[in-house]
């Protein structure tokens, strides 16, 4: 296993700056997630680490050694793609054995068989070994892809949105298994995704990426509780954070175009116009609530319900446990937990109140 260090990596493609001075490090045995929207530079980062692309500036270090000049095969990394990972003309067994059969490795046939069978067991695909990959379901295919990466015990796993093409239920199940596998194996993993739930549930640390730049690095709790900007705040958390333009009136925060005024105390550093962020779980309907609104939409998810409450011209999202009994058009009284309010400047950056 390995400690991976990216220092000031930049990569340009004709017309677009894919990576702009990116630096981060992945500790040995860590599950590190790169989170960002499509086009943020996540896949490019993985490809540069794997050696399939060469960076224009900066260095990559494995365990303190610069590896920029090594070919992909010498870097000892494993890459799991979103699709097209499995060789369609080979059986599952041969797919798993393929990395071990490379001339570079010179593994004996018994050694190969042992490793393949071990890996198949870990991923619960032992019963599929003889099957041709064309006859596998989506979830089974991804398991085999992950197996092919594991079978070599590389120093780092690079995973490029491997769960994106799977059905919702399959994704849930594989998430849990991947996490368990990674924790029990202690494998250093760099996982890339646009799905914030995958990032929150699996990561030891997350780096939020946008337009080729790292916006914030932290544990899932950090990113969720202390988003460094409105971009991060809106990216992470489902349902989306409520974000409104507000102004300072005496010592209260007044959300524009609504009837919501939040009490202070407000620090002197807060400008007169700013943005306020309130996570839906902190908007709490209460029969004795201070604020009033009208229910314009209810989305019952089962374990919780998303209520769309209209106050003035604004709609606030509120997350309540269970299946709510509010009906469309009902008047809803609610409170806002003021200790969990986020403040951002109009430029999007986090402010201390």
């Amino acid at each position: 296993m390995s400690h991976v260090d990216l220092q000031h990596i930049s990569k340009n493609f004709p017309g677009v700056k894919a990576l702009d001075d990116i630096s981060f490090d992945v500790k040995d045995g860590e599950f590190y997630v790169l989170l960002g929207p499509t086009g943020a530079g996540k896949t490019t980062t993985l490809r540069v680490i794997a050696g399939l692309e060469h960076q224009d500036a900066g260095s990559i270090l494995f365990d303190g050694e610069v590896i920029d000049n090594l070919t992909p095969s010498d870097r000892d990394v494993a890459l799991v793609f979103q699709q097209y990972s499995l060789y369609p003309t080979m059986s599952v067994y041969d797919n798993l054995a393929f990395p071990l059969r490379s001339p570079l490795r010179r593994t004996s046939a018994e050694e190969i068989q042992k490793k393949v069978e071990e890996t198949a067991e870990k991923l619960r695909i032992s019963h599929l070994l003889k099957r041709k990959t064309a006859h596998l379901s989506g979830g089974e295919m991804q398991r085999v892809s992950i197996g092919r990466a594991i079978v070599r015990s590389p120093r780092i796993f690079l995973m490029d949105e491997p769960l994106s093409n799977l059905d919702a239920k399959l994704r849930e199940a594989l998430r849990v298994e991947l996490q368990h596998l990674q924790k029990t194996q202690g494998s250093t993993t760099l996982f890339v995704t646009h799905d914030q739930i995958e990032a929150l549930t699996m990561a030891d640390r997350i780096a939020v990426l946008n337009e080729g730049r790292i916006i914030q690095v932290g544990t899932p709790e950090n990113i969720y509780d202390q988003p460094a900007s409105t971009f991060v705040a809106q990216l992470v958390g489902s349902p989306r954070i409520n974000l409104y333009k507000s102004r300072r009136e005496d010592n209260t925060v007044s959300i524009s175009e609504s009837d919501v005024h939040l009490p202070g105390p407000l620090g002197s550093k807060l400008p007169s116009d700013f943005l306020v962020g309130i996570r839906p779980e902190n908007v709490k309907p209460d029969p004795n609530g201070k604020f009033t609104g009208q229910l314009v939409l209810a989305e019952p998810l089962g374990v919780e319900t998303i209520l769309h409450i209209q106050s003035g011209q604004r709609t606030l999202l509120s997350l309540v446990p269970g299946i709510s009994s509010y009906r469309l058009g009902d008047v809803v009284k609610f409170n806002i937990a003021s200790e969990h309010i986020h403040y951002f400047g109009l430029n999007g950056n986090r402010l201390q109140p």
Partner: protein
Amino acid sequence: MASFEETGPRTPVVEPTRVDKVHPRAKWGKSIRVILTVIVTFIMIIPVLVMIMTAFKSRANIVTPPPKVLFHPTLEGFLYLFTDRSVLSPSNLEAERANPGDLNYWQKLALSVGQKINGPSDYVGRLKNSVIIAGTSTVLSVILGLFAAYAFSRFKIAGKDDLLFFILSTRMLPGVVVTIPLFLLYKQLGWNDTHIGMVILYTVFNLSFSVWLLKGFIDEIPIEYEEAALVDGYTRLQAFFRIVLPQAVNGIAATTVFCLIFAWNEYAFALMLTSEKARTAPPSIATMLGSGGLEWSAIAAGSLGFLIPVAIVTFVLRDYLLRGVTFGAVRK
């Protein structure tokens, strides 16, 4: 009368299809299309049918008008094609007829048209030349084309688009235009009437086609497969053989068939650039002479015989061809 809208089709529908496609009116349209297709196909096949019939007709049946559809079939054409004969003078003819001795079928046939077999004709040798030249050039153009196509598909090459267009442009030229310069060139090189000269010529002509076709197929193979192999420790060449090649089989089959058809049927260059040693079958067949002009039944028999190997190859590979022809049509 209950309309279709009320009762639906009389037999249950088993394949995926839209409602309006099983409407009786739609069915009529389908029948008409089928009938038209059969008629057009038949019209297009007529020359081939005539050829097949001619191969089995006697000289008299061929030349006397009107053209006969019903006739007494004979293997004369094949006799003329495969054997070298001499016409017997009337007196010799009488003598042979009077004293038949032990003759096999062909000798008897020759006798019945007043000729005697001297030995096999050049045709078999010409057929062999066709096989050697067409086969070798096809193999070469497919192999070379495969590597070139891979390079064009996967690597960054300066002026790639221009190079590809240049390669394509060689096919825009009708071959006959360059026959004379080629003839002179070959004379200088001493390649006139040689196998190697023809093989190289056909290979070059087919190369443009095979590069373009194969590049289309290789483009369709996701590059992630090779990248995964590179990361796993394989060299590019190994990745090519183990991963790209197995997936390119359809394309290779389709390309092989097309190259083979061109080289096999090629007439103009063969006629101009060969005479005896390296002459292939097509010019031989076309110039078969008999006592009264062109020996039509021999020509037809030769054409028929010549057609059959390619027909068999195409039939055997038809699944690959179908997949291949449509697959390469959508380019990225």
